């Protein structure tokens, strides 16, 4: 791709990425909820996203340490993720009512996990659907004869 088109390509990519969220906000029939409610929800989502991905990353680091003969990698990864998770949790607890009406932080975590199920399942289904839609066009090896090859 010519360099002159790179900023335009990145701008187009960013616009395409934000197309879905912008459309949702545009079509929303009511105005956004209270900023405090939104903030607490966002803090919980950040924390749950961090914890769930950390679990996956620990498994990845276990496989990495095993395959590349780096036995200390999962230990260091676990330590770093635990430390950052602890600091992140403390900071979120300080900045807002992270636990809400739940009986315990663990109960709140599982409630939040269920609360995020629609987002996780929606994204998990959207990725293969998007890729299959693209594959409908790319299933053949045919080239555009009208366009000349670049090299």
């Amino acid at each position, binding site marked *: 791709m010519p360099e002159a088109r790179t900023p335009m*390509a990145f701008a187009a990519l960013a616009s395409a990425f934000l*197309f879905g969220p912008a459309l949702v906000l545009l079509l929303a*029939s009511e105005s956004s909820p209270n900023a405090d409610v939104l903030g607490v929800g966002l803090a919980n989502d950040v924390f749950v996203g961090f914890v769930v991905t950390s679990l996956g990353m620990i498994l990845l680091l276990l496989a990495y340490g095993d395959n590349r003969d780096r036995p200390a990698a999962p230990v260091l990864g676990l330590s770093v993720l635990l430390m950052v998770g602890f600091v992140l949790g403390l900071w979120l607890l300080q900045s807002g009512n992270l636990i809400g009406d739940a009986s315990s932080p663990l109960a709140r975590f*599982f409630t939040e996990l269920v609360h995020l199920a629609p987002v996780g399942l929606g*994204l998990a289904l959207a990725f293969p659907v*998007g890729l299959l839609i693209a594959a409908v066009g*790319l299933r053949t090896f045919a080239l555009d004869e009208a366009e000349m090859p670049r090299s």
Partner: protein
Amino acid sequence: MEPALAAALLLWLPALLAVFGGFNLVGRGGTMWRVLTPFSVLLVAVAPLTVPDSTSTQAVELLWGVAIVGLPLLSGLGLLVFSGDVPVGRVPAWGRPTGVLLVVLSAWLIVSWTPTFVDDVTLWSRFVVVLLAATASISAVLFVLHRFYVPRRRSRSWPMSAGAIGASGLLALRGVDGSIGALVVAEVAGLFLGAGFALLLCMLVIWLFERNLPEPDALPPPSEDDLERAAAIIARRVTHGGDADA
């Protein structure tokens, strides 16, 4: 047994084992995981019957609804991909109309159906909004990538733009109920932020280990014997094709 403990043992533990077992089966796939993974999936699927008092089962009820919409959608798109002018794995002539029918059926379900077995209706509404918005975004991103970076194939990008427009159209038809629009966008942003942070830390750990790798030992130049053997293999392949070495 307390509902929380029952949910932990009959839903969350099997769910964790199912995910771990799934990854394990994709890799080496030990015998234990071949038994344990389907059993864990079964336990998760029947969680609304085994732990009906737990609020966690709402996620499984949602999963049932997702399966009813998602399976025909994925099968229909799969049939469309492997029908017609495709070099490998072509399906018979009935593939394309069946695929179109399944995709249309799924689109109709997405727009008009709300599963009655999902107790919390907002969960389903949020799932549909995320699915359609994410499909629109992913299709639009793939369209842009394809138009900018893939030469001599531009005429093949129409399904991606059709996917983005179609998902947006379905979202407009379905509508975004109440105030869930901003909530859903905030949830996705928060999830991406938290997940991205964990990913970044993991990459940092791997980088710390990989940056101290010693330089690989320089190999000695090929000997006369090596060169002669390579020349013989090339000559044989040029004359007889690749099967001569098989």
